[in-house]
């Protein structure tokens, strides 16, 4: 398994927790491991070399520390409790998770912190930790740590109960903030809607969920559900963060798509072919041919709209649902949308010639907003908008 080149440092994948240990600053022996699950994962030698980062100086208390040394990654959150009752007037401890050096560990940081806070509160209330460490047998602690390791590795969540207190730990993926949702974008589920546990989500999200079908865009959903559009945007953004939905461009017959190099995958991967055929079929009884689907995708290029393509290849006769075809292609990255951006050029001589239309208020287009968005804002059809823009000689289109 070690030879597996898939797990290299920086591969960005999550790995299991290899070990959990609690270490403390012993009044006479210095830094030492009180309890470790599994036993001897971190040897005494290794611990001694890194102890200086695990029981650090005062300024680094209560900081999330991650140190990558000697092939493993150690996450900790060092804590100090000042109290006269302890030897040296303070009790230092740090609960550490150990992962492989290649694994991503950002998502475990809040977990370490919360677990430490939990131990801290128990220590403050009943000296739970220090009692165990002085008696030398840390059965309860070991049991707790073993449970955390097993449950987090297998189910990514864990409920701990010690005495009368309970705490819940769960791993939450750390993603970058999703970009703001635009009105013309279409949310589409990446999971089945039936797998949704309705009571996990807030009321507004529950209200809009039935209308997320891969074809309604955000402002249409807002209109259909009678929910304020900014709330819909916020809900969708939240769903995007959790990877439940993704955003795709709105389907229009005047839209242009272009094949990507990934399209070749459709010719090889039987799994992809099967999914594609099932997804794009008009009815489940009559499945389309992969070659026809491929021909449809291959026909998508700059300058040819979905309408042109449908006229040419007649997807109805091939049992292909072209909307689903496009949706599948976008989701799988086989095709990408080609947007049209109007830009107003501000050259004076051109504006004088174009003034015969004498429009009272000419809008300028900066090239940041695509046609879809403009249509959505203005409530115009794409054809209408394009017609007015074509008439304006100052406007050029950039297609990308």
């Amino acid at each position: 398994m070690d030879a597996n080149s898939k797990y290299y440092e920086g591969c960005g994948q999550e790995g299991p927790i290899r070990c959990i240990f609690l270490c403390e600053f012993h009044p006479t022996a210095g830094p030492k491991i009180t309890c470790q699950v599994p036993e001897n994962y971190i040897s005494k030698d290794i611990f001694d070399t890194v102890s200086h980062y695990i029981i650090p100086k005062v300024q680094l208390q209560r900081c999330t520390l991650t140190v990558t040394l000697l092939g493993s990654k150690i996450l900790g959150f060092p804590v100090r409790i000042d109290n006269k009752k302890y030897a040296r007037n303070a009790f230092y401890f740090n609960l550490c998770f150990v992962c492989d050096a290649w694994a991503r560990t950002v998502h475990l940081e809040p977990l370490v912190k919360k677990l430490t806070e939990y131990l801290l509160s128990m220590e403050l209330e009943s000296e739970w930790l220090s009692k165990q460490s002085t008696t030398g047998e840390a059965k309860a602690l070991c049991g707790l740590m073993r449970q955390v390791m097993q449950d987090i590795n297998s189910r990514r969540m864990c409920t701990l109960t010690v005495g009368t207190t309970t705490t819940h730990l769960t791993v939450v993926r750390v993603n970058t903030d999703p970009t703001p949702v635009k009105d013309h974008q279409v949310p589409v589920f990446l999971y089945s809607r039936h797998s949704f546990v309705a009571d996990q989500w807030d009321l507004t999200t529950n209200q809009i969920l039935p209308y997320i079908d891969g074809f309604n865009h955000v402002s249409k959903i807002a209109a259909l559900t009678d929910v304020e559009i900014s709330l819909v945007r916020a809900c969708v953004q939240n769903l995007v963060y959790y990877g439940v939905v993704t955003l795709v461009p709105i389907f229009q017959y005047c839209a242009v798509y272009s094949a990507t190099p990934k399209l070749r995958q459709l010719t090889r991967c039987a799994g992809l072919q099967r999914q594609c055929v099932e997804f794009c079929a008009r009815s489940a009884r009559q499945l389309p041919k992969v070659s026809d689907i491929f021909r449809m995708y291959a026909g998508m290029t700059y300058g040819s709209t979905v309408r042109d393509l449908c006229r040419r290849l007649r997807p109805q006769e091939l049992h292909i649902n072209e909307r689903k075809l496009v949706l599948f292609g976008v989701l799988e990255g086989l095709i990408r949308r080609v947007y049209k951006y109007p830009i107003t050029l501000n050259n004076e001589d051109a504006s004088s010639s174009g003034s015969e239309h004498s429009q009272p208020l000419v809008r300028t287009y900066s090239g940041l907003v695509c046609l879809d968005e403009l249509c959505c804002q203005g409530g115009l059809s794409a054809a209408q908008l394009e017609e007015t823009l074509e008439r304006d000689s100052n406007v050029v289109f950039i297609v990308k």
Partner: protein
Amino acid sequence: MEVNPLNIFFVKSDSKGDRLLFRYPYTTENKDEGTQKKCGRHNPYAINSTEDLLQNPQSQTSNIYKGQLSGFTDEMLSTLFAVKAELCNRKFELKVNDVRFVGHPTLLPYRTNKDDTAAMILINIVFALRASASHSIVKCYYDLSKRLGKALRHEEKRCSYLTEEMKIMLAAHDEVTALDSEINSGENDEEEECSRNSTSSNPYGMENGVDTEPKSAFHLILQRSSLARCMKSVFEELSSTGIVQVRINKWVLLSFCLPHKAHQIHNRGLIIEPETIDKCLQKLRPYHGILLLVNPNELLASIPLDGSPALLRLIKLYSPLKSLQTLAIETDLSLTQVFQLTGHLVYWAKATIIYPLCEGNVYVVAPGANVHIQSPLVEEFAKEFPGLCLLQMLGEFSLPAPLWYVSRGAGGGCGGCGGGARLARVVAWLLQRRLLLQLHTYVQFNSPHWRWGLDTDGKEYYCEKHNIYNQSCSVSFSSLNQMQLNVPEPVETRDSTNHFPDSDLDYPTENNLNQTDFSHTKPIVIESEHTKYDKFPEIDSANHSFDEGVDVVDGVINTNFVNGCDFDDKVEKKKLHGNSVDSGISSNMNGTNGTETNGINGHVEHVNGNIDKLEEKIKTLPTRLSDLSLKETEHIMNTSSEDDKFESNQDVSPRSKSSGIAINGEKKNGVSLNLKLQSEMSFQQPIVWSVPANCDVVDACRVPNEPPTTESLLDTFSVEERTVLAAIPAAKDTDDLLLLAQLHKKGYFRGEQHLEEIMFMENVSRSQLMQLLDKFKDVLITFETEDPAVAMLYPYQ
């Protein structure tokens, strides 16, 4: 943003303890502001719940304040960076909240004052980065730290440079401490420590009436120590260009490139990771070309005196119109060497990979092109090309049309474009900024029985991603079910049979080769290539520097020598084939032998005659070839008027009419030569999917001595395919059918190779191919998309 370093530290640790000798920038945070910040977040109306046991005391979550490192004292950092001896000479990585420290602690012998007993000293040059910086960025910084350490070790050994510099630094520290204690003798201890730690010169500093501005020790050091100045320039060059060129102790030249930053030269926000560059270089083919991102003269000037002469030659002969193969011939280098040099140039953000500019190229606006009305590029473009408007120009590329069509001013918008030469410059400019993307046409043979998912064994091939979906059914389109959202995907342990889902961005050819057993179909050549390839990404990025160390240069020289021999060998072997090759062409080419072909013919015979003088001839042959290829490019740029007849002319395109024969002759040689090289050197062959072993491209590309019969070629089609083919009227023409079968057999109709590649490898003209595609359009599906190798270097969403 996150590619920039936050800080650079220089720490030593020896028998006298550890010390932070220098840091840059050294403006440390103001304590007052720090506390204000902590309180400032709180709502003044909120109840301060200090009794809450769990939240007390508030932990610090960020160590970056206004883009500067904050919250660490120098003492603390020096203890952190002075690692134990066991951790020396390996990577040191520590993350504290949102700051990541990376360095390479170097242990080196150190001459203590008089007695020449070598004590060991540990030095650590540490970079502070934002924790969000990607792993490959961290790796580059680590590499830089390692190299700085090595350079210092060398200089210490050579002339005790480090000892001297450390003396200066320590003296400065002591001086300032002494001064401080004098000034602050009346004040309390805490204040003193504070000012010592945060050795001020603070921009946001409050003028808190300390009479003399306490001189920062670091400020003094910067004035006195050349090493400190080096580190400062390292920091500043990293933050500005990403390319570091410093001479340590005016002796050791340290060149380093942070590709993530350096590639932002024309595109802000474009982050290209070295891994991407490596992947791109693996896909490099002889027909690709390079486009310099900087002025060639400036580039030549920036190369140090001991730079590789091969590189200089390459840059001198560079043109965006030339393919790498042409360049290799003109510079008299082996193709592998040209590939390596290209790799260097791309890594150092001096060049990018393109398909050589020619009139048949189809460009569209790149999807990631960031063009809006206020874009600085608009101004730049207007300055570079007076009279042209960038936005209008990009508007011209809204529809995919060959370049000659655009140059004709089809839209009328850029009527003043001023001919092909200027357009070529415009296109080059746009390509440099990744505003244009080239589209290629790929061909897929439409088998009536859609069995593309099957490999040779008849087993179904699954790419990794869909294989997982298929097995677990956890995430699929039709059976979206079973997956409870509140239970996130479990993390499997490493020992279990399941694997972590792989995010394969591009098509996983390697995976496939690993998964399915190709051993019996795969020519051994591929095997060896693979092993060579595996080594490739492992090459230390140090290798990418122009003049890193003697060892690297040595390596190049070595390969040069070996390749040189190979090259000669190849030429010799090719000679033996020479006559048959030429005769093959002349029969193909309507019998109109150009004078140039004759020239080659004669020449080849000549060589055959005088094997003893072979070496001289070899030298002349490439120059001859290069002449021809020059002509070719000229033709392509000049003979645009004749291209009008492109469609109407039935048998031969004007291009191949005017220059084709000569070029073809040349190309033939070139191709066989280069394929021969290909099998020996390490670049990938076209991936041959489920093609029987006899389909070795190397063999296939050599023109067969006796033309294969139609029957034998038709064997490549299955029975069903043959019936479909029989229904196509064009199949009656044996020539067409033969060409189709030939190309099909060689695996060109699998959507892997674009038309230009087929033209290059198979020596057919574009019009021939276009006619073929048109005639067999029922079985050949074409699609237009970008070349993945080139597109890799584009900013993608």
